[in-house]
């Protein structure tokens, strides 16, 4: 019993990693708390569902995040960039407005009913893990989470663009003065962030059903992760995501009330004592 | 001009400020006398702002003593020193943007404990040519006017000493000239003594009774403007630095 709960914790944690890395990246570069991130996750899931209907899961896995990336670039270019000199509240509320628009769009196009997306054939089996059988798909989810975490970390640490991203999130003005096209960079990073949200949606679809309340289910958890991990810090987000995943999964079974409150209590404590989060500065 | 006869209103003795291995200020002594304008010049990074911060209590001294008149204020915080009459303006204009001009000056006066804060505010606004802007929102003022408002906030409650950190920064030639005149009027009419950190040499040498020159945290010259200007060490310090 414990194994399966721990396992589910890993699964949810992996999902949060994929989703929250996007949120952290957007915050790190644009200083925007993207309230629409949960809706983007949902939109990615629904788009993926439709694409999979015409072709298959694997195409959706690539196409949906790609579409979300384009949306992200547009969001940055025509939203965040134009509002960058305004006070932070304005931008946050614009993302809130975006949340409403996306929710309405999803309801209009796909309606209120829940959908389920079938697990791709290649992964439609169970595997024996330490005495319990677990769906292979969920193992793949964990693998995807790990893949995202590792690739992002390597990319940020070792690539030239990664260097620019880290520089721009610390000091955008100086970075721009050094000749880096910070606007293009921001558009790219935000695009990556929204793509990750969409990816999380597609990945989640086969094992969590699609419903219009998907976004609100995850958005708060995502904020908790990003805050506890340190606003803008990827490494922090990864760790916090796993921790939260574990708490949710274990807590749901053993201590439901405490488990629900604990992440928030942690978030409150951290925000009061160390508003920059326990990981401190970016990436 | 026997400047040493005037009463000593501000005395900084052997002030040193060290932090993290940096000796920002290293053994500086400054004497400000009543009714004088005392200019403080030096290249960027010489420690001038740090000394102002130390004198006003914004920074702790590593060593030294600061006296306001007869009172030793070394251990007192900025608010306490302000209450005793040691006021400053800020290098970057620091006003209350969304409040009305007279409203903020009156509030500052009230918080200083002035009984008739309205009259105090009006007198200051009159003195600084801001009366016609009394009911304007601070954010709507021009840059020069905002600098004057910053100064007005520093003048509530008639401080005895006023420390100005680059008050002419960003002002046009005319505005600098006008401000200089205001400062001179303040010292003669209001008995305020002024310590002035400035880069504008014309202003400093034009209105100061005494000039002190800083370099690398130390005083390298001190005296009447003409003498300081001619001092070879001062010329080297300015020619030698990149600033």
């Amino acid at each position: 019993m414990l194994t399966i709960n721990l396992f589910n914790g890993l699964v949810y944690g992996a999902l949060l990693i994929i989703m929250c890395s996007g949120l952290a990246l957007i915050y790190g570069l644009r200083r925007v708390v993207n309230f629409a991130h949960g809706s983007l996750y949902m939109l990615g899931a629904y788009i993926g569902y439709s694409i999979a209907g015409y072709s298959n899961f694997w195409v959706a896995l690539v196409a949906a995040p790609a579409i979300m990336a384009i949306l992200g670039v547009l969001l940055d270019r025509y939203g965040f960039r134009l509002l960058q000199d305004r006070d932070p509240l304005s931008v946050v509320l614009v993302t809130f407005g975006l949340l409403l628009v996306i929710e309405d769009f999803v309801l209009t196009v796909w309606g209120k009913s829940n959908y389920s997306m079938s697990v791709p054939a290649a992964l439609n089996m169970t595997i024996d893990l330490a005495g319990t059988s677990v769906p292979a798909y969920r193992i793949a989810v964990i693998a995807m989470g790990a893949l995202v975490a590792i690739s992002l970390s390597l990319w940020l640490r070792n690539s030239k663009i990664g260097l620019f991203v880290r520089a721009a999130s610390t000091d955008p003005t100086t970075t721009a003065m050094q000749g880096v096209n910070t606007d293009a960079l921001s558009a790219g990073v935000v695009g990556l962030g929204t793509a990750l949200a969409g990816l999380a949606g597609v990945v989640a679809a086969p094992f969590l059903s699609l419903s219009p309340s998907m976004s609100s289910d995850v958005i708060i958890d995502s904020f908790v992760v990003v805050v506890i991990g340190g606003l803008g810090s990827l490494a922090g987000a990864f760790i916090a995501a796993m921790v939260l995943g574990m708490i949710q999964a274990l807590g749901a079974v053993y201590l439901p009330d405490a488990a629900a409150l604990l992440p928030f209590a942690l978030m409150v404590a951290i925000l009061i004592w160390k508003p920059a989060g326990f990981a401190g500065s970016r990436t | 001009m026997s400047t040493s006869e005037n009463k000593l209103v501000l005395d900084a003795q052997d002030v040193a400020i060290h932090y993290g291995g940096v000796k920002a200020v290293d053994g500086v002594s400054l004497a400000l006398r009543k009714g004088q304008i005392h200019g403080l010049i030096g290249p960027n990074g010489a420690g001038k702002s740090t000394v102002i911060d130390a004198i006003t209590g914004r920074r702790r001294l590593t060593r030294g003593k600061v006296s306001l008149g007869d009172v030793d204020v070394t251990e007192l915080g900025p608010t306490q020193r302000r209450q005793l009459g040691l006021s400053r303006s800020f290098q970057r204009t620091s006003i209350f943007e969304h409040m009305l001009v007279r409203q903020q000056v009156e509030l500052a006066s009230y918080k200083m404990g002035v009984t008739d804060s309205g009259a105090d505010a009006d007198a200051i606004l009159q003195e600084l040519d801001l009366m016609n802007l009394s009911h304007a929102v601070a954010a709507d003022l021009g840059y020069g006017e905002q600098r004057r408002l910053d100064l007005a906030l520093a003048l509530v409650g008639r401080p005895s000493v006023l420390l100005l950190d680059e008050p002419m920064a960003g002002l046009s030639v005319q505005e600098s000239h006008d401000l200089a005149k205001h400062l001179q009027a303040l010292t003669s009419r209001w008995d305020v003594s002024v310590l002035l950190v400035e880069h504008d040499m014309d202003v400093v040498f034009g209105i100061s009774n005494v000039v002190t020159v800083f370099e690398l945290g130390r005083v390298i010259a001190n005296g009447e403007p003409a003498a300081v200007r001619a001092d070879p060490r001062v010329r080297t310090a300015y020619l030698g630095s990149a600033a």
Partner: protein
Amino acid sequence: MSIQRTSITTVVALAVGVAVALGVGSNNVLSLLTQAVIYAVFAIGVGLLLRQNGMVSFGHALYFGFSGYLVGILLQLKVMPAEAAIVVTLLAVTLMAFVMGLVIVRVPGVAFGMLTLAIGQMFFLTASRSRGLTGGADGMSIEWPDTLFGVAQSQLLKPSAMFLICWVTLIVVLLLLTLLLGTRFGSITEAVRDNEERARFIGIQTLLPRAAIYALSATVTGVAGLLSALNTGFVSPENLHWSLSGVALMMVVVGGNKVLWGPALGAVVYFFAKDILGSYANHWMAIFGIALISVIVFSPSGIAGALAKLVRGQGAPGALARILRH
């Protein structure tokens, strides 16, 4: 605003309320207007925090719901008359907010917003799960007594009466806030909001005014919560949810926060969008979202601000222009 102008505006506003209460025949419309007015009070509370402290709260629904729950529990326990329960609830909300405020107003920027979000959600979860105390996810009905302040419940629950009660409350709240913010206290909070360092430098203790404004904004929101409890006779965890706080914030921004009554305008727009747009009402979310985005991009001081500019631009005579500018 002078005492004279304030008095005239107040009397006119009250008269308008009476006219609406008596003049509007449709109970549905009255009911809708009542809800709008309740949300207007809620939004004014949220807007007050933003206006005087420069702080954004994503958790003010906490006070909206909490006041409903507290008065409901007090009435259930039958420990005091309803009138006293109302007073006790407001005092409790104010005190709780002040104590919390002392701790949380020190947290800067977006972290404060996230903090209020987290605290609000904790209360939401607690209320959702405490079946015994709060009725859990199903909510709790509030047992108002047969007479309240001497008036029979049957009379109170009439749509026109309920609207008038809420409207009068709204006007009184605006009046009291206007008077309070015109005092020295108002100036002090503005100074702290504009430039905390300089405020401290001129001798202002910055923590207490900020906490006081936070508490005051909570009280106003609590008043809205009580009105809601009276209007619906019911409270549920949804009254505590962060999305409700978000809606209130939207009303503040769309209505405009430069004037005290701007958020009230935002509430009206919200309800108009939500209910009155007929067949398009299904898309009210998108409409409101777009309205929000448009306002932020094109008219940051909200609809009230745009109105003021319009009036000023046309050189309208003093009184109206000055009211809109206040």
